[in-house]
């Protein structure tokens, strides 16, 4: 199907014919009504679609490289895996559009409406998104390195694990957005508004956050090494585990910070402590971490014990535990080291469990409610795992040995074991 004219193409689309895989390279369909057009895998490279109505169109895997799409209406369209490299999409309406895994490298989306659009894994390196509306858009794992996002409105948008190194976010509104584990290395975010945003483990190293609003933001375990924070607003930010700037702060606007590991406001710090938290935050936290760290060394044997570790504690076991119950708090890190063996044991609670050694359950389920279960190449687990309410995250390295049954939460027999008083006297080897 080569080289359709505008009239032929319009006639066939209006008849409801599918133009999947059609060769429409360079075609002029400007201002055309193309609602629900079937154009999957079509070649529209260099096409002129200015002002066209492509709402709800099927454009999956289509090629629109360097296409002229200014003011186009693509609401509800499916552009999954489409190639839009270098496309001109200024002021385009892409509300609710599916652009998952689409290639938008170098595309111009200035002033576009991308509210609620799905852009997971999309390639947006060097794209221009100035003034775009990204409210509630999903950009998880998207690549936005060196992209221009100045003045975007992205309240409630999700950027978790996105790569945004060197991007420009000046004056961007990211209130309540989720940027967990995103890479914002060297980002320019002067006067950007991150109020109430989730920035857990976000990498802001070398970022320019001058005048940025980070009040009530969750920046636990975020990295701010060499970041500029002069004039930033930080009151109420959750900062446990934060890696500080290592630079003088200049004048900042902050009344208190929340140092509690769970980010629940139970450890407020004010005035004198704040500069050290933000500049050498890691040192401050290390002291706290060491206090909360438990290590059970090789050669120790613990039998018939019940242990409880509170939220945020770090526990490493290189000992032999037999017939023990371990109750862990929310996000407690429990590491069974390479020499650790937990035989006839159970682990209960919403912790992060890493197994380099061996775990054998006492009764089923032996692991209840873990947030994450990771087994390394040398690790072995023999257990039923009752998932947490939010579904347990699993990671298995090639080489691990597993006899694992995974069951959903709340199945019979998966109730957390009765919480016993911790036998802290038996917590030996405390570092």
């Amino acid at each position, binding site marked *: 199907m080569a080289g359709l004219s505008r009239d032929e193409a319009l006639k066939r689309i209006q008849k409801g014919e599918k133009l999947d895989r059609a060769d429409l390279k360079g075609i002029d369909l400007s201002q055309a009504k193309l609602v629900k057009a079937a154009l999957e895998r079509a070649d529209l490279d260099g096409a002129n679609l200015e002002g066209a109505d492509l709402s709800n169109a099927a454009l999956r895997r289509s090629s629109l490289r360097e296409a002229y799409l200014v003011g186009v209406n693509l609401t509800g369209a499916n552009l999954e895996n489409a190639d839009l490299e270098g496309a001109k999409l200024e002021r385009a309406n892409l509300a609710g559009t599916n652009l998952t895994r689409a290639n938008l490298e170098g595309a111009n989306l200035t002033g576009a409406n991308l509210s609620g659009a799905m852009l997971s894994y999309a390639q947006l390196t060097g794209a221009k998104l100035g003034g775009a509306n990204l409210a509630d858009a999903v950009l998880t794992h998207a690549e936005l390195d060196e992209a221009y996002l100045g003045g975007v409105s992205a309240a409630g948008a999700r950027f978790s694990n996105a790569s945004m190194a060197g991007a420009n976010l000046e004056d961007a509104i990211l209130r309540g957005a989720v940027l967990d584990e995103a890479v914002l290395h060297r980002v320019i975010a002067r006067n950007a508004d991150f109020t109430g945003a989730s920035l857990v483990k976000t990498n802001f190293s070398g970022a320019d956050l001058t005048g940025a609003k980070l009040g009530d933001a969750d920046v636990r375990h975020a990295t701010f090494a060499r970041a500029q924070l002069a004039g930033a607003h930080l009151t109420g930010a959750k900062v446990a585990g934060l890696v500080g700037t290592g630079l003088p702060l200049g004048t900042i606007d902050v009344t208190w910070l929340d140092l509690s590991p769970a980010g629940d406001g139970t450890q407020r710090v004010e005035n004198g402590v704040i500069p050290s938290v933000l500049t050498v935050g890691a040192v401050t936290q290390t002291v706290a971490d060491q206090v909360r760290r438990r290590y059970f*060394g*090789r050669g120790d*044997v613990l039998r018939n014990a019940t242990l409880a570790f509170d939220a945020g504690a770090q526990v*490493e076991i290189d000992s032999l535990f037999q017939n023990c119950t371990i109750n862990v708090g929310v996000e407690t890190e429990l590491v069974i080291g390479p020499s650790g063996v937990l*035989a006839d044991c159970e682990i209960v609670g919403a912790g992060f469990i890493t197994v*380099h050694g061996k775990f054998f359950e006492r009764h089923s389920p032996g692991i209840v409610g873990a947030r994450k279960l990771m087994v390394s190449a040398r690790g072995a687990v023999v257990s039923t795992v009752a998932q947490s309410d939010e579904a347990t995250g699993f990671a298995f390295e*090639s080489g691990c040995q597993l006899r694992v049954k995974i069951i959903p939460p709340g199945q019979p027999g998966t109730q957390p074991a009765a919480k016993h008083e911790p036998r802290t006297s038996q917590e030996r080897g405390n570092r």
Partner: protein
Amino acid sequence: MSDKSGLPTGKHTLVEEGTEFKGTMSSSCPIVVMGKVEGDVAGPVIHVTPSGVVAGVVKVKSLHSAGELAGEVEAETVQISGRVRDRTVIRARSLEVSLNVQKGGMQVVFGECELAIGDEPNKEAAVAAALAPPAPGATAAAPSDAKQAGGKAGSAAPAAESEEASKRRRGTQPPPS
């Protein structure tokens, strides 16, 4: 030969998206499932793409799935992301599932399923090894600094500080010239 996404570029059996196959499939070349396959599948390698679904008994040497799996899987090596449905059993020599969803990474949603991977761990042997005295010259294991897993696991004990280095640190030994 495979492309950037790991799919074979050479001769392969392809179940395209939108295609549903029911029955027994046996192939001597790699199988790529973008649609839906229900039944028994046998071949050297099977790739299930994000849009693919395989439900049934799968016997292959190597399985890579980013789609949906259900039923029984027997393979030498299994690499999965995507979704594992309820009542699925995976038996393999090796299984790889990554938690950190970085570029090109994977994430799996597990339904109710069973995983039998590698040799069966031996509890008695593990306990005996833990009770055995450390080998002469072996240093005691030290706590790991690798806090966030999902990355490469394994925590090497830091090398013991040499006596000289220790003295230098204490200021009792001049630095080497």
